[in-house]
């Protein structure tokens, strides 16, 4: 069953400075199956975050359709939870307060909220930290809390916008393994935006590679790795390297195009 279907997505806007019509996203189509982990990868500035913002309902689309659980997207909604790069936790709420936020907004009774808060804080390894405020947590814990805050709402799709980009390298590896473990145990549907090839391959079932501006889907690469996955094992597998190389080639082909465009303009 398809959880998220993007067809013929287009995004154009008028440049404030030149007044010209700019096409950011030209023609992007792909689907994410229920319980699937799909990464969207592309050169910086290619509009991958814009695709995520459109799916989240933060940004309007100019053409095409985005359908989540059979319903066309119109504005933000609790069926699409977002994990932000800047964690975007509420500083005035404790870890517990952040996790139950969405449940409170939707009027879920207190006993059920408490139960789910405990469940998801435990899931992300934050059991015992429920009374801490976000600023009292490490960067890695903050991102895990961001994941718990989304999963507690049990959304149709979890959207993740480069969530580990501002985390130091060692912690990032650990967080990627944590996320894989959570994904393997709960099987949420995940739409993950990143510019890190290894990260995309390690985490995903499929990797959507976008071209530079205006974005199109260059190719969709299946990741032939079994689960559960761990970094030390994955790095030793020829299939991991081969997939990462394939993705890198697709991206490199794109850099030639970008260079060509730069030369023209």
């Amino acid at each position, binding site marked *: 069953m398809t959880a998220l279907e993007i067809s013929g997505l287009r995004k154009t806007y008028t440049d404030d400075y030149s007044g010209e019509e700019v096409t950011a996203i030209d023609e992007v189509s792909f689907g994410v199956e229920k319980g699937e982990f799909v990464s969207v990868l592309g050169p910086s500035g290619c509009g991958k975050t814009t695709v995520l913002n459109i799916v*989240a*309902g*933060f940004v309007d689309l100019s053409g095409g359709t985005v359908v989540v659980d059979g319903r066309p997207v119109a*504005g*933000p*909604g*609790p069926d*699409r*939870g*977002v994990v*932000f790069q*800047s964690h*975007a*936790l*509420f*500083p*005035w709420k404790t870890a517990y307060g952040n996790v139950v*936020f*969405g449940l409170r*907004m*939707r009027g879920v009774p207190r006993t059920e909220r408490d139960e789910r808060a405990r469940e998801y804080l435990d899931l992300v390894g934050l059991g015992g930290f429920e009374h801490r*405020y*976000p*600023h*009292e947590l490490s960067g890695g814990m903050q991102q895990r809390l961001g994941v718990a*805050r989304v999963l507690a*709402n049990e959304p149709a799709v979890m959207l993740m916008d480069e969530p580990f980009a501002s985390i130091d390298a060692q912690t990032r590896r650990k967080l990627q393994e944590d996320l894989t473990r959570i994904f393997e145990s709960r099987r949420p549907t995940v739409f993950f935006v990143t510019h890190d090839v290894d990260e995309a391959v390690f985490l995903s079932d499929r990797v959507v590679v976008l071209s530079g501006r205006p974005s199109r889907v260059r190719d969709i690469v299946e990741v032939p790795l079994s689960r559960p996955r761990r970094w030390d094992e994955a790095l030793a597998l020829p299939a991991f390297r081969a997939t990462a190389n394939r993705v890198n080639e697709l991206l490199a082909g794109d850099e030639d195009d970008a260079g060509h465009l730069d030369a023209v303009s």
Partner: protein
Amino acid sequence: MTAQSVKPGARRVGPALWFVGPLAVLVAVWAVAVAAAGTPMRVFPQVGDVAAAIGDMASSGDLFRHLGASLRRMGLGIVLALVTALPFGIALGSSRLLSAFFAPLLRFSVALAGIAWIPVATLWFGYGDRAVIFIVWNAMFFALTYNAMLGVRQIPLQLLRAARSMGTSRTRMFTEVLLPGALPSIVTGLRVGLGYGWRGLVAAEIIASDAGLGYALFQAQKYFRTDVIIASMVIIGVLWLLMDRLLLAPLERRTVQRWGMTGVGR
């Protein structure tokens, strides 16, 4: 963590000393200067004279009558300012168009707030409580509105998006996100506004009232009671310090400091 649990009492002595110490030095300098210069009481009274004046005011009951009148007006003015300025400021902050339109008007009004309105206030409300409360409200309103508006505009976009993507309704957005998110700036506005309000209160009581600390100050001048004038000034200053320490400081400690929102931006 450990430092806090070892000596909870010892940590409070330092700040308290630094609060009282400089004031004690000021009083000492005052005592020595007046004694050395031999200044007559009419020009500037000695510390003991002022203390005696406060004692007299306390025993005659005047002190508590004036204090009660001032604090009641101040309290009502603060409550009115909070319930009007916060919703207005937050509403302005959530609309780019409204805040662009109102920002210069508010900056203009902050400069005029309070004391400059006393003539109008007495025309509208006559002499008495209502004119004074109006001045306190007016003195606080613009600074509080302006800072609430700025506070909302400083909330990171991602926080607003996170809230919206979790199904937050417009009304709950106000209480759950905009108000706490703007609080660091609102506390600044409250500190500035309370200062304006307190000064506005004293000035309005001088002109438009028959009770209150400002009135006591003004009456004493009529009878050349410099000791009572200085006594009233001391009481007004000390009350302000207490207000800051007993109202604002705990509010800041329990909210923005507890939440780690004291740094720039967050």
